[in-house]
């Protein structure tokens, strides 16, 4: 992956989140506090404004993480932000990286999310999408397939009862709604697949 792919990835993600901003808010209103789309769109807007190729994937990834940390807020801001800052530490100080490095960075990122959020698969959070997606990529699945699978994982949160995050307060009333953070994570994988395929 090149740095310009990296830039394109965040631009594509921003476009997708903006397009689905209201849907994400509505999903969050059903089982949370209705701000997930607004939060992510606000933060990603700042990211795409500032993100320019810098010659260093490490620096760019760290910048995205710091910017999301300081603009998104809420659970998703802390998770996305700290995961990216963590992931950046294994990225090269160059404009290019290979597949292994990318995998290592992803794995570092989800470790950080797990440590912060203490959620596992089945808790009805974005981890329900992140963990199987990274596992599939590690076992060699093409990004396009992983993205499709991510979307099904997000949809598969619908029947679950939330155990982490704000939706957990609803108890059994959280059943029957897709987790907003899972959907936005699936959008990130779609964005990645588009950028890598093209």
């Amino acid at each position, binding site marked *: 992956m090149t740095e310009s792919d990296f830039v394109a990835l965040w631009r594509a993600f921003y476009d997708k989140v903006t397009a689905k901003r209201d849907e994400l808010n509505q999903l969050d209103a059903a089982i949370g*506090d209705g*701000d997930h789309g607004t939060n992510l769109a606000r933060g990603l807007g700042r990211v795409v404004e500032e993100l320019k190729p810098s010659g260093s994937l490490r620096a760019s990834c760290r910048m995205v993480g710091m910017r999301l940390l300081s603009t998104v*807020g809420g659970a998703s801001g*802390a998770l996305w932000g700290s995961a990216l800052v963590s992931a950046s530490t294994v990225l090269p100080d160059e404009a290019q990286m290979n597949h292994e490095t990318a995998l290592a960075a992803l794995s570092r990122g989800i470790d950080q999310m797990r440590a912060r959020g203490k959620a596992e698969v089945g808790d009805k959070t974005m981890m329900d999408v992140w963990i199987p997606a990274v596992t599939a990529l590690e076992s060699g699945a093409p990004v396009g397939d992983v993205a499709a699978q991510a979307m099904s994982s997000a949809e598969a949160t619908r029947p679950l009862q939330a155990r982490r995050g704000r939706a957990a307060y609803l108890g059994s*009333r959280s059943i029957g709604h897709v987790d907003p953070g899972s959907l936005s994570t699936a959008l990130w994988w779609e964005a990645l697949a588009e950028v890598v395929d093209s």
Partner: protein
Amino acid sequence: MKKVVNRVEDVVDEALDGMALAFPAYVRRIPNTNVLARAVPKKGGRVGLVSGGGSGHEPAHGGYVGYGMLDAAVAGEVFTSPTPDQVLEGIRAANHGAGVLLIVKNYTGDVMNFDIARELAEAEGIEVASVTVDDDVAVQDSLYTTGRRGIAGTIYVHKIAGALAERGASLAEVKAVAESVISRVRSMGFALTPCTVPANGTPTFTLEENELEMGIGIHGEPGIQRESVRQADELAESMLDRLSSDLDLNSPARLAAMINGMGGTPMLELAILARKVAHWSQDKGHDLRRIWMGEYMTSLEMQGASLTLLSLDDRLQELLDAPSDTPALRQGVAHD
């Protein structure tokens, strides 16, 4: 959506300016941040207190910045936890060399963002401790879940830990008294109407004319169940019974109670709840020492209320009654 606002994007920014302009003797806004800090900083060598959370809960938390309570309050967007860089600014402003206590409401987002800020502050050499308030009995508590939410009982933590910090106690002592309050405070709330986040423009839920949401949080989220509207006394009694059984109040206890409006409930109605709280305490043989009645922790314009019970001992009572001088909570006026 009808609101007294300018551009919805500017709501938090302008409201923070408004707080600082309305209460200049109490708070100042740290430039380019969402932090309200004391206009007159605390004496050096005393523990600083920082709290915060999403906006929309006013007067929480900026209204509690001042003598005897907080040193800084950090505001996020409406109903959204503040970001770690902002919390860090709050910690810096509250640090007078004796360490800083973070008072965090138990929401995943708040906890994580305050945790990250704490790590950043510690990296700068500031001693930081933190407590997590989880007073809401509506939510099932379990190790395998997020645990209970923090709601209005948080203000008792501000008050009591703030009073002790003002006297020069150590960070460990201030943290310990905060934890003692947390272990002895329970709350529960209900909503008659939803509220609308300015940036969204639509209410977070809808209720029929005869329905209420019981066991709500403070972010306009749905409660734990929908019930039919009942008379104030019945409503209060069922909540009080739940609070007291969660506190194991089997024998007569010494109590403080808070009747907290959610933002859109008139004081006329809060007073009717206060009456019932006093009568219930009397009936149960409790010694109800203090009632706080008003708007302490709100959800925008939501109609509804929460009830909080705090089980007092000598020390907590004395600290609860100590003077405080903040925009929203003042007590201890000297006069003949």
